[in-house]
Every structure is written in structure tokens, then in C-alpha cells.
């Protein structure tokens, strides 16, 4: 593929709704990351996968956030019972190498607005 693909690009949700954000990493990339970027801020780490294993989920802000990568390729970030403070751009990045040893390739992000 051309790069990391994220969908939907824009999502408007009513408070309390569940949302699912999808990330298609570059083929063959073993590492996959999710970041949350609030307006005017830098990206904040959420979670990291090495193939299908979720090795670090220390950045997930609450148990309403859940991420999976069942087959070591596509990943989904799910947010349950969305709150207004969840409004942000959610960035996915992938890397050919383990962890941050290699360059991270970012998607264009999914912009979530919670009303």
C-alpha cells in the first residue's frame, strides 16, 4: 500500500456512543502504535503492538479504551461510552523494526468529535 491508512478520517459521536477506529499499517511492519493528539498538543502515546501482542498499553486513559490487532496486521482502537474529553485526533503509526528502533510511519489520523 501507499502508506498507513486510517478510517474513518472524521467521526462525530454523541456522548455515550461507542466508536471504532481502524488502522491499516504498511504491509510487513511488525510494530504498530496508537497516539492521541488533542488540539494544540503533541501526540500522546496510547498503546504499542508487536505483531499481535500488545506489549504496552500504559497510555490508555481509561478502561473505556481498548485496542486490538488480532492477526498482527490491521488494528482497531475502540472507545466505549465516549466523553467530550475524548475529542482528539487519533494517530496510528507503524514501523518495520521493533519498537522505536526504526522510523515510525504515521497515518493521516482519525479526527473524533464528541458532542
Amino acid at each position, binding site marked *: 500500500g501507499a*502508506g*498507513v491508512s486510517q478510517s474513518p478520517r472524521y467521526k462525530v459521536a454523541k456522548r455515550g456512543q461507542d466508536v471504532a477506529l481502524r488502522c491499516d499499517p504498511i504491509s510487513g511492519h511488525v*510494530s504498530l*502504535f496508537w*497516539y492521541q493528539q488533542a488540539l*494544540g*498538543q*503533541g*501526540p*500522546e*502515546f496510547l498503546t*504499542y503492538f*508487536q505483531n499481535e501482542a500488545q*506489549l*504496552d498499553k*500504559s*497510555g490508555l486513559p481509561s478502561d473505556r479504551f481498548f485496542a486490538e490487532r488480532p492477526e498482527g496486521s490491521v488494528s482497531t482502537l475502540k472507545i466505549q461510552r465516549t466523553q467530550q474529553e475524548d475529542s482528539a485526533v487519533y*494517530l496510528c*503509526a507503524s514501523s518495520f523494526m*521493533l*519498537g*522505536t*528502533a526504526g*522510523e*515510525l*510511519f*504515521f*497515518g*493521516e*489520523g482519525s479526527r473524533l468529535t464528541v458532542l
Partner: protein
Amino acid sequence: AQRVTQPEKLLSVFKGAPVELKCNYSYSGSPELFWYVQYSRQRLQLLLRHISRESIKGFTADLNKGETSFHLKKPFAQEEDSAMYYCALSYYQGGKLIFGQGTELSVKP
């Protein structure tokens, strides 16, 4: 806790002027430092990393462990350098890249 600080939210310079985007970090060990850039309507991308010791698009950055800094420099700014610049730190290869808040560089003609 590990932290990256970019003190300037906005830096405005004229074309041809020198540029220095400041980045300070807090970490007691041996971190790996990066600069990422986001041009208008484009995705975030790697500009350079300190272990490569490269000059990319005329930009350089030197890791100063004594001052815990990793400032990004370019001797002569170009209009196409206008973008958001993020300094980032990794302190283990587990994947946690910590970003600063970013500095918007505006290069005026």
C-alpha cells in the same frame, strides 16, 4: 518522569535567516532523540534522529547530554520549511515515543 519540552509554540523568521527550534528533555539515562515534522495537510514524518548524525533538508541537531537539549538548527530558512516541528524521545525500544508540544515554524518571504 520522562518529558520533552519545546518552549516556543510559534517561531517566525524571515527567509534566509537562521533558525533554532529548542528542545529540552528530562531523562537520566541515554535517550534516543528525534525530530518529526508535519507540513500543511501532510502526515507526521521523521525529519532526523540523533544517532544518524545526518543533515536533512539543511537541518541539523546535536544531542547535548550536559544541557539535556536537542535543538534543531538551520543556517538559512526557506519558505518551504514552514511546518509544525515535534521533538521526541525514546528511552527504550518498547515503543513509547514521547513527544513535545510542538513548535510552529513560519518562514516569511
